[in-house]
């Protein structure tokens, strides 16, 4: 089934009332948590994981994806109105969105971000349809060595690109890989690192890990921060309308941002946060008025917002066609699919067309819904910023506990969440990125299996990773990335003491 037919088939899946309702639920919830600083898509998706046990895999995936791209729409609201990014992806929107708001043009900034998000998403959907067909055909040529090498590249890229401390990022990835080893070894049946605990035989519980790292640790870190948000001004509908001159400045930056975003989103290891920063830098570079940037340039809102939404969609390309998540959120999505017994990969397009095309069609429906919901109802979302965080976080905690308990009715898992939450908070204090730990955790078993298989086939000859052209390309790219980040570290050292951490380094 190709392109258009597939999309139509997907529409027939995604428009079923039993599925559509979860799409709506996902995007509304996503906007809500995106608007609120203090809870992000990561925490919300972890929170929803146990609830997806009660849904069909299609509905579950569509809902979780809706939360993700919905949060990208909402994230801009707090960025523009309060200079407080609702999500890391919208951090760069503060640079020009907030100055616009201060000049009384908050409505125009919000309109720009919403419409650019919409354009970016649809661009991403087209790229997704185009690329996934090509890639899932090419993926049949992928062997175990190629998969292992590609995942290695993804992990190295995620921990080095745009990071201030690659060693710290890589340490998180390796720690995650080690955690992924806990439990029964698939090949030998041996219990690894269970220390006699029967609860650990199935491995560390993904739900408990994600909820502890993102739900609990973020709550602890944000109780104080999120209370100091301040109260935004009300926005009248009329204020949303840009002038004709302003309107003309949206489409091209949005298109450029969307192409950047869908490219970097589809690459393993570079996600929507990085592409929003790249889009901003690109817009400033090609602008004839670079001095406008930072003082309320429409282009500085349109480009990044289109980029991060396009990237959020195209990030599904490697996840769905190769079964390899490129960023931590995709790792959670993959985890959700595996919970439902669905193994994404090259065969998914052929074997589960309902799920594949249903998801893609739901992107279209969801983004249309978001635009229709968010522009007229912007006032409601803005007033959400008045909800004090102290009303929300106890509810989040109770839902974390009950959610993790509901997976297998075990109080052990709730204790585990407390422990993981404490570790997660300590990690964020020491400026480690727990999202990378999760990425390593999900990819760990996949890498180990493919590595073992590759070396079994090659009879123990490690040169297999250089003889196969696909694997060799990934290995060379990995080596180049490592060399680059080493060079950067040396250059930084010779330049003197570290400056204060940039927004970019902390963002992902």
């Amino acid at each position: 089934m190709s392109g258009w037919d597939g999309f139509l088939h997907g529409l027939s899946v995604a428009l079923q009332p039993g599925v559509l309702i979860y799409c709506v639920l996902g995007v509304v919830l996503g906007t809500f948590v995106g608007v609120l600083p203090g809870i992000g898509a990561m925490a919300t998706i972890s929170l929803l994981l146990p609830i997806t046990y009660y849904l069909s895999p299609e509905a579950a995936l569509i809902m979780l994806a809706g939360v993700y791209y919905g949060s990208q729409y909402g994230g801009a609201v707090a960025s523009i109105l309060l200079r407080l990014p609702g999500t890391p992806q919208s951090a760069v929107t503060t640079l020009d969105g907030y100055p616009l708001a201060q000049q009384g043009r908050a409505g125009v900034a919000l309109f720009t971000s919403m419409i650019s998000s919409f354009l970016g998403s649809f661009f991403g959907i087209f790229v997704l349809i185009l690329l996934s067909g090509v890639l899932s055909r090419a993926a049949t040529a992928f062997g175990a060595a190629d998969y292992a090498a590609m995942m290695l590249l993804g992990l190295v890229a995620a921990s080095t690109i745009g990071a201030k401390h690659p060693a710290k990022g890589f340490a998180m990835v390796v720690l995650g890989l080690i955690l992924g080893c806990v439990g029964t070894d698939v090949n030998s049946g041996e219990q690894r690192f269970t220390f006699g605990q029967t609860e650990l035989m199935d491995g560390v519980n993904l739900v408990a890990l994600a909820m502890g790292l993102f739900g609990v640790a973020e709550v602890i870190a944000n109780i104080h921060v999120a209370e100091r948000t301040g109260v935004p001004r009300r926005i009248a509908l009329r204020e949303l309308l840009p002038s004709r001159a302003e309107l003309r400045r949206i489409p091209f930056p949005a298109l450029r941002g969307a192409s950047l975003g869908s490219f970097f989103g589809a690459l393993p290891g570079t996600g929507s946060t990085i592409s929003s920063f790249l889009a901003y830098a690109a817009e400033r570079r090609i602008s004839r008025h670079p001095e406008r940037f930072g003082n309320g340039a429409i282009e500085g809102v349109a480009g990044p917002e289109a980029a991060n939404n396009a990237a959020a969609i195209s990030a599904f390309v490697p996840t769905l066609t190769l079964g390899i998540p490129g960023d931590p959120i995709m790792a959670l999505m993959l985890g959700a699919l595996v919970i439902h017994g669905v193994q994404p990969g090259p065969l998914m397009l052929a074997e589960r067309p309902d799920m594949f095309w249903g998801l893609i069609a739901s992107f279209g429906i969801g983004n249309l819904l978001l635009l229709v919901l968010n522009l007229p109802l912007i006032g409601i979302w803005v007033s959400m910023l008045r909800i004090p965080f102290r009303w929300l976080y106890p509810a989040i905690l109770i839902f974390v506990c009950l959610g993790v308990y509901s997976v297998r009715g075990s109080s052990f898992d709730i204790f585990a969440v407390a422990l993981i939450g404490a570790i997660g908070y300590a990690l964020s204090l020491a400026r480690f990125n727990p999202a990378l730990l999760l990425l390593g955790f999900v990819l760990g078993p996949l890498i180990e299996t493919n590595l073992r298989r590759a070396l079994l086939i090659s009879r123990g000859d490690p040169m297999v990773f250089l003889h196969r052209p696909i694997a060799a390309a990934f290995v060379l790219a990995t080596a180049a990335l490592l060399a680059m980040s080493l060079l950067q570290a040396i250059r930084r050292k010779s330049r003197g003491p570290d400056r204060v951490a940039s927004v970019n380094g902390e963002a992902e």
Partner: protein
Amino acid sequence: MKHDIHDLASGILLAAIGLFVALYAAGHYDIGSLRRMGPGFFPAILGGVLAVLGLMIALPAWARAGHRGRIAWKEAGAVLAAILVFAAGLEPVGLVPVTLASVLIASIAAPDRRVGWRLALALGITVLSVVVFHFGLKMTVPLWPGQA
């Protein structure tokens, strides 16, 4: 003499974890060969890599000043205590009392000294969680003491 305590401590801790994992894997599980890897092979290598990375984080941190963020002791204490109470109490005393207690404990961390909103919040969240998890998702969990 200034040190980046955060990086120094976390680097050493990570190196120790890595060393432990490598040694434990090498000592307890079959390493095998490149051709037929045993269950110990992958973790042993990962442990070694983590140990090296830990040192790479810790060593430069000795010679540079760090920034110290505020540690939210009260928030961390209240949140973790609330979860522990919930974990310990859910099965013996049931959903309703344990939710009330946990919300009240968690709300200690909030920067609002008044009491009324805490009680209202505890009641509201309890009703919500009973409706969603007991009636909605039909989770098998006791609501009151003595129902386990």
